[in-house]
């Protein structure tokens, strides 16, 4: 029960126009951060650490939602997209990965440009506006292969926006083509890529890099490639893979490095915190991230990355349930229908996963938000009217007092 003195204090606050929410944020000791957000002041690394460590997740979500609504109102962006993974062969051996295969493994594959076109034609009747294509680092593939698959995609769907190749793959493409990065990126752009997906960043920490993905290029290289891409006119997303062995300080550092580069280039469209899945990886003894951690990553990213327009909750990694809730914790984008996702599997069914347009619209409407269909470059394609699920539909005869 509320004590008498607490009741008096809360009543005094109400008289002064302070809401219970303000009071609860003050009790949680978060007023200084709350006020910085209200006054659009940049948060410090220390603020970031506190947001990661403070147990009161609803209050942090509440503050992150202020920032989210200032930028996007009640909009939730989604996309109808197809994922293509041109090869699973990879020489990097990252310990957190369940996707890669060695060249001699029976499940190893490389898709030819024709096979890629076939996969696209399987969905010819669906109005897909984005292709997302990434793959393993396969040293056997020649430079021309990458140019050819990009052209092949644009041949089938000339109007689609193509988001392809992580910074890690680009490093491989540059090496095999023996050209500088800017020239490599210009070639790919000319062939038809429109944006970069931003994967392979993992966690910007030399310690984690050594422990889990030492064969891959490090954070400086990742950021340098992103900078070059932005300079040649290719926007990108940025990611962070969390929930394995990283420490809080390393995540704050990751976010501030991204924020610094964004100040310089303004080339990041969205940040995507990626919830790591332990299943079938070399470190599957680790428990993996919790639901609160997933929401917290969304909220802290929204608050720290004041200069990156969109925060995406990728529902395949975060689960659809957490993604829908995340729309109130700072996320304004839930990716899309994702036909043929292969990087992680649903641990319960081991089937490939897809969400229908109807399911996505239902999730957005139930959460009281406005769906906005976009392409890879966040150009608006459609603004469908939200329809509440049946149990929330109100008999118009009765009025709800609100």
């Amino acid at each position, binding site marked *: 029960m*509320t004590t008498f003195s607490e009741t008096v204090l809360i009543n005094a606050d109400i008289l002064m126009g302070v*809401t219970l929410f303000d009071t609860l944020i003050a009790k949680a000791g978060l007023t200084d951060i709350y006020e910085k957000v209200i006054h659009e002041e940049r948060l410090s690394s220390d603020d970031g650490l506190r947001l990661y460590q403070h147990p009161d997740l609803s209050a942090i979500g509440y503050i992150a939602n202020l920032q989210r609504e200032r930028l996007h109102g009640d909009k939730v962006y989604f996309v109808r997209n197809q994922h293509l993974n041109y090869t699973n062969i990879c020489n990097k051996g990252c310990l957190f990965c369940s996707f890669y295969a060695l060249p001699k493994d029976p499940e190893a594959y490389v898709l030819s440009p024709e096979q890629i076109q076939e996969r696209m034609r399987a969905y010819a009747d669906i109005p897909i506006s984005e292709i997302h294509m990434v793959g393993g680092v396969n040293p056997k593939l020649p430079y021309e292969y990458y140019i050819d698959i990009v052209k092949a995609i644009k041949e089938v769907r000339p109007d689609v926006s193509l988001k392809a190749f992580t910074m890690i793959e680009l490093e491989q493409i540059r090496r095999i083509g023996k050209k500088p990065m800017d020239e490599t990126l210009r070639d790919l752009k000319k062939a038809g890529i429109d944006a970069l997906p931003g994967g392979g960043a993992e966690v910007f920490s030399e310690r984690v890099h050594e422990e889990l993905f030492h064969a891959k290029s490090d954070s400086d290289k990742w950021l340098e490639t992103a900078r070059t891409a932005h300079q040649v006119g290719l926007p990108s997303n940025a990611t962070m893979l969390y929930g394995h062995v990283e420490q809080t300080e390393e995540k704050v550092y990751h976010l501030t490095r991204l924020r610094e580069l964004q100040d310089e280039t303004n080339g990041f469209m969205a940040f995507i915190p990626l919830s790591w899945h332990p299943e079938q990886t070399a470190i599957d003894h680790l428990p993996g991230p919790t639901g609160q951690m997933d929401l917290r990553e969304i909220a802290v990213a929204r608050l720290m990355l004041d200069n990156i327009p969109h925060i995406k909750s990728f529902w395949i990694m975060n689960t659809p349930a957490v993604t829908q809730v995340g729309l109130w914790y700072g996320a304004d984008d839930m990716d899309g229908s994702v036909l043929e996702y292969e990087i992680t599997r649903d641990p319960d069914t081991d089937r490939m996963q897809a969400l229908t347009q109807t399911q996505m619209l239902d999730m957005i409407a139930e*959460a009281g938000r406005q769906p906005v269909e976009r392409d890879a470059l966040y150009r608006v394609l459609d603004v469908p009217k939200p329809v509440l699920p049946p149990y929330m539909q109100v008999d118009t005869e009765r009025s709800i007092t609100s």
Partner: protein
Amino acid sequence: MITDIAEKIGAGERLTYDDGLRLFYHPNVTELGMLADHVRRQKHPEPVITYNIGRNINYTNICWVRCKFCAFYRPPGDQEGYTLPEEEIFRKVEDLIDVGGNEPESCEILMQGGLNPKLKIEYYEHLFSEITRRYPATYLHSLSVAEIVYLAHISKLSVEEALIRLRDAGLKSLPGAGAEVLADEVRDAIASRKESTQEWLDVHRLAHRIGMKSTATMMFGSVETIEHRLQHLLRVRELQDESLDVSDGYFTAFISWSFQPEGTELPDMRKATGYDYLRTTAVARLMLDNIENIQASYVTQGPKIAQIALRYGINDFGSTMMEENVISAGGVSFVMPTDEIERLIEDAGFSAQRRNTRYETVLSH
């Protein structure tokens, strides 16, 4: 805006039906979470989330009722029908004590089964008194209203007589099972052969009168509307007011979970979301000002949403279960070992504390 409702909550005032409706239609779940977390903190100031070690024993799956939302039952005469022999039930109890330890009345047994025309009061009396005599570490938190009404009926007893005999044989409290949504429009649509709203409330009222405690549940996400859910919450609150006033028994906890359509006669129904679960849990915490404990349902929600719910008014993670056959027959079911429950609680910034069915601390893990 719900700042006026927030003011009432801050001042500790009771919320009305209209307040509840507005909360349900308020989309900002972080605000609902903050309010429910505030009330949780008022009722349970220590940063502790409790859990219970217990198990389900589904002693029979034979049932003539045929509820549309149930994938567990088999009709009498069906080849897949079973009633567990006593020896097997005892073995399951011993498995539970191996995990839960020997502290008296610390291991919860949730016996739940179908309405089996062969099982009369003597069956239960014998079983319960044997379990109580052989295993002092157990606490019988068993039987739904439907089972009690039915066994009284086929034993030609009043419900009160049956409850007294069950209590005297060792039944200590009733789970809130079978409440579904306490609104007859909904019950008629999904469980027309089960007890009515009034009967469900009457059996719990009687149990409270004879000094038994019970829990209340709500299964949302089938055919009901938001208004039905609110009617449910208010009916539970009203009975609790009355029981606290005149009885020794009362509701110790409230648990909401969502309908699991797979394998039932309504397989294509839209499945309630985690968002809906969090909102419903928070509104329940805010409306049920006279119930101490709100339990999570990780069995239906999974570990991620259940852990998030610890900031939506939940102060108890529920039971380890060990085995779950009813919900899993409908598709999804999550069973969780104790160390995983403790990890999730601690990750959310609380310490984990084992409790018994009376919500008293159990020292052994």
